[in-house]
């Protein structure tokens, strides 16, 4: 049953999405209910997996209450098919996978709800929702992958099913963005493929094992090769996580509809990239083997540069959506930076930021989307006084914004705190460089988000924006997801102990 459920949760949304193609004339309402119910069923399946896996109990209790620690969690693999005796498509459910799958599948129904309203005037909704549902399956596939090869397969699938979503608008700009997206994604995957082949040669298995699977002889005989290949593979996976120098696609891809930008380009796709790098560092190569070597330093330098680049660009960008996209680039590198500290603390911090930023940024994107959709406000200078008309939306924007800046006891504060603590524990010069970049970037974050918030609440000299009296509040379908994000970022900031103890259990295996 458990094995069935894992496969079900991955393939069911893909099939259910594909079914939509067969009914191009379906009514909007029917389709909405259909997709929503499917996402709920899938959520139920994911919850079932979490609850029945030996990891899940801890997540629910918040604290692990004695007994043998479930070391077997990562050995129980679910084989789907074998290509050769080493190359198999298989699932394996462990703590990291549960974390990511829960994050994604809890946010999915809310994003769908949001999309129903946001996409209501769109002509090609059927295609949109079909691919949107298929994306859920492939992201869960990445989360549940049991080895590097399976992850690579679902990684490619994810690139292919999200590509039509990026160019959904079908304008010239969107098509160009879509093309670029594909080039970046497939190019990155090609790098990762090279890495996978080498790992295959130097290890007996491709499975994810905490502490790495590379033979110790390979580290002794060929350290240079291993490090170079690690570097190349990391660069390949980090394309999805929008790290410098391959982060531009995220900005171009912001031509996509808001649910795509909000969910996929702040949570699912980009976090899948970060997730893959964490798998690579901690489950394939092993952080102990990599700590203190040149790839760590080079990559930390790159992430620090990306952190500053993203937030520096966000200050200058006046288009609200692109501003948030730049902010996403910056924040993704926080996650990568945490992972690159190559220590359990760093991984814990990285995963914390992965969760906190996901919840916060989806809220911010949805708020901006609500302003765009309901009132056609796209630019920073158009929103004077909007906070008094779109009360709930803008209040949520403020909460999420404050959280992202790192105001105490909101979500992202906790993760930034963890990152800084990990930096102090590491105490290396490169760690401090990254820590400094995070601090400076927090200031930039304050600048680019607070200027927006202030515009909304304190219109300069009392000049309200054009058409102030006609401004409307967004509909309930938008407000529910927005409110959920704002509440979640607050709740996670206040009650972070259960999450942290769960993450502690994951990282204690390293």
């Amino acid at each position: 049953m458990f094995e069935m459920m894992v496969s079900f949760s991955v393939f069911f949304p893909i099939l259910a999405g594909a079914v939509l193609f067969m009914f191009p004339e379906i009514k909007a309402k029917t389709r909405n209910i259909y997709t929503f119910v499917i996402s709920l069923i899938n959520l139920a399946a994911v919850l079932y997996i979490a609850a029945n896996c030996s990891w899940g109990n801890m997540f629910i209790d918040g604290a692990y209450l004695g007994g043998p620690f479930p070391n077997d969690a990562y050995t129980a693999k679910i084989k789907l098919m074998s290509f050769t005796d080493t190359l198999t498509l298989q699932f394996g459910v462990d703590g990291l996978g549960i974390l990511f799958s829960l994050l994604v599948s809890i946010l999915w129904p809310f994003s769908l709800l949001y999309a129903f309203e946001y996409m209501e005037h769109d002509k090609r909704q059927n295609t949109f929702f079909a691919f949107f549902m298929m994306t859920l399956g492939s992201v869960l596939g990445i989360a549940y992958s049991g080895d590097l090869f399976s992850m690579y397969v679902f990684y490619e699938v994810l690139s292919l099913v999200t590509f039509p979503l990026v160019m959904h608008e079908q304008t010239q700009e969107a098509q160009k963005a879509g093309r670029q997206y594909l080039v970046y994604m497939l190019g990155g995957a090609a790098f990762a493929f090279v890495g996978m082949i080498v790992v295959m040669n130097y290890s007996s298995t491709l499975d994810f094992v905490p502490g790495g699977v590379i033979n110790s002889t390979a580290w002794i005989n060929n350290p240079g090769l291993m490090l170079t290949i690690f570097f190349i593979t990391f660069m390949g996976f980090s394309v999805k996580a929008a790290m410098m120098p391959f982060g531009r696609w995220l900005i171009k891809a912001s031509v996509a509809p808001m649910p795509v930008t909000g969910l996929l380009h702040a949570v699912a796709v980009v976090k899948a990239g970060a997730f893959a790098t964490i798998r690579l560092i901690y489950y394939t190569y092993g952080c102990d083997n990599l700590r203190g070597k040149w790839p760590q330093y080079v990559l930390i330098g790159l992430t620090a540069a990306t952190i500053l680049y993203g937030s520096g660009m966000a200050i200058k960008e006046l288009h609200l959506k692109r501003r948030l996209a730049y902010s996403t680039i910056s924040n993704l590198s926080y996650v990568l930076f945490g992972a690159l500290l190559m220590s359990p603390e760093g991984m814990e911090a990285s995963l914390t930021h992965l969760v906190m930023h996901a919840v916060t940024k989806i809220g911010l994107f949805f708020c901006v989307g609500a302003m765009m959709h309901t009132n056609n406000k796209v630019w920073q200078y158009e929103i004077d006084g909007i906070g008094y008309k779109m009360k709930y939306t803008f209040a949520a924007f403020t909460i999420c914004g404050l959280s992202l800046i790192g105001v105490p006891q909101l979500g992202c504060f906790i993760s930034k705190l963890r990152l800084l603590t990990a930096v102090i524990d590491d105490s290396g010069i490169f760690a401090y460089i990254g820590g400094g970049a995070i601090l400076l970037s927090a200031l930039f974050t304050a600048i680019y988000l607070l200027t927006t918030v202030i515009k909304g609440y304190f219109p300069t000299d009392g000049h309200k924006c054009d058409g102030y009296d006609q401004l409307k509040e967004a509909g309930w379908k938008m407000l529910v997801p927005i409110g959920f994000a704002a509440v979640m970022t607050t709740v996670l900031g206040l009650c972070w102990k259960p999450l942290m103890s769960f993450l502690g259990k994951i990282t204690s295996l390293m």
Partner: protein
Amino acid sequence: MRGNTLLLILVMWPVAGSFLMWLMCGRSFRRADPEKDVKGYSPVKLWLMTLGVTGFEGMLLIAAWLYGPVIKMDTYTIGRFAGFGLKFAFDGFRIVYAFITTLMWFCSTLVARDYFTDGENLMRYHIFSMWTFAATIGVFLSNDLYTTFIFFEIMSLASYAFVAHTEKADAMKAAGTYLAVAVIGGLVMLMGIMLLSNVCGTLNLREIKEAASAVLGGNDTSAKNKLWAAGIMILFGFGAKAGCFPLHIWLPKAHPVAPAPASALLSGVLTKSGVFGVIVLCLEIFHDVDAFGLLICILGMFTMLTGAILAVFSVDLKRTLACSSVSQIGFILIGCGLVPLLKEECTLALSGAMLYMVNHSLFKLTLFLCAAVVYMNLHKLNLNDIKGFGIGKPYLKVLFLIGALGISGVPLLSGYVAKTLIHEGIVEYIHVAGGLAGFFKVLEWLYLISGGMTFAYMTKLFYCLFVDKPSESESKIQHNKENKLHDSTHGTHADVHHDENDAHGSNSGNHQIGIGMVSYSAITAPAVLIVAFGLGAKLYISKLAVFMGNFNTFSYNFEQHEILNEIKIFSLENLKGSMISISIGIVFFLLIRKFLCGKNANGTIYYKNLWPAKLDLEELIYRPLLLGFFPFLFRTVGAFICNTLPKALFRGTMFALKKIGHFISNVLPKALFGAVMSILKKLTDLASNIFDRTIALLSNTVFRPFRHKDHPIVESMKSKLALTEKTGRIITSTLSYGMMMICVGLIITLLYLLYLLFS
């Protein structure tokens, strides 16, 4: 959850009260307007509610004070709040500052009704005021640096609404500066606190002294360095809020644009929360580190001088008061810095610094509320516009005089006491300073000179308000000039400004708003305290200073207690210092009248703004650096790496691939094919030559006897033989030749295989 629960209620009550206010006042952010049938809050009701909330907070304070000894606990801890826990304490210093905070909020709120007669957004003002109040109380009561940090951040963010209240362009800019300083300070402080917790293992203020001593006394150099880094970062955060040089930039910007009652709070209380942190650093963490004390003293010296000089040159009432705040914070910092330097003998300096805090809060309350009276009548703050305002207002005159003379350190007012104590501290250190004696000698003189400058600029303000004759027409001309200047610089908002100024101008010319008894009583309260503390100096020191000395693990021991009891505050020695200072002040004042003022044609005095506008730390360094240089640097470098580099990489790869592909798929095969063909041709030529010649040779020698001359085949070969003689070859183009070559090849292959097999 244990301890004095009232402490938590103290911190939470204003927040709860603010919601209560909102609920009770119509649950609306709009002001009620019966004429236009707009439903909303009534300003008077809102004001009364705010007063009630603040007053109840005072009662809660008394209750908490009395309840503490009953349960024999002065702390309160929630372990589980947000995972880090909240820790509060209620000892001498904290009790006094909680009372001062409440008093200041109460007085400031009292004036608010008269002050905000025509303002909008009062609900927002009062709600944020209450949140700031709660957070400030939280900072002063906190017994754990993490708790301090949380309330510190809430305070910084909530008080943004104070500065941005008017929503005018300059207010928004100043508010931006305020927020930026607060955010940077908060972040750096957070990093410092994390480092500190990493090094010391605790953030509890009652345990940290021991932990820090252990680290500083230990042999671990890296831990020591970390502790120092942590100390500097925490100092950065608190210093930014206190207005310490070079982070004082927000004070002179924010105070003039904030409403005057809020300025009083910003200057009187919020800066003190920064000083609170500095005291913690000096008294707990670095309590015996000379270098740290020296650092604070030097920073204090710069702060003191910068503030005083800026205040002397300022021609704006509230800006002068704000710069004065910077300067006074410098005095306090010197007092704090002497604590680690003097160690056991720090009694005078510490009590001086603490009393100075109390004094300064009271002075600034009085002075800013006087400024509020000026502003609500004239809607102007420039000295040239407001001069002579106070003529014929004896009550205001007395109040302002008390504040002005108090802050200048004139004997019989409370300012004198604290100033003398810190001065005593400096003198005390000169005796034991050794190599640093020279520096502290200079510091002593700078201290006296800054005191003199305080006297000078306060007298300047007093003269301006109560002695100089008003010149309505002059000021109007002046004002119009400014307007024009304003127009040329801010083209877009020019018309709006113009209208507003015109409206205010006519307003101020025609009628003045009466100031109610309520407002006057609010200003009187601190003034009375100033006088009382000054007259009862003996009691003031021996009771209040000793009481305030109970801070965390610190309290005065018996000998220190005796020193405070025995001190002769009005001795000739001490009076001499004050007299020197005041004499210097008089000289400065005369210099101001001489060089910074001019005379109009009709004999009235006007104030010149000689301070170059470009000489502004913020505009000159911080803004270009933070908004221009850094983002630009990261953007260009980033854009190069993210844009140009991948593109170049992509194009380069494509180009290389194209060339390589062309080479491999076109040039190389062609060349290879050509080469192979030519070699083959050569080989076949050679083979056929040899073959032909052999045949020819054979047929001419061995087979000659068998040759039939008339054989038809031979006949048919004749032409070919002729060809052979011409070209030297005969059978290259025949099938049999090809078959033969294949056979040769097969034989070679076979031989090779045999070789492989047997080798």
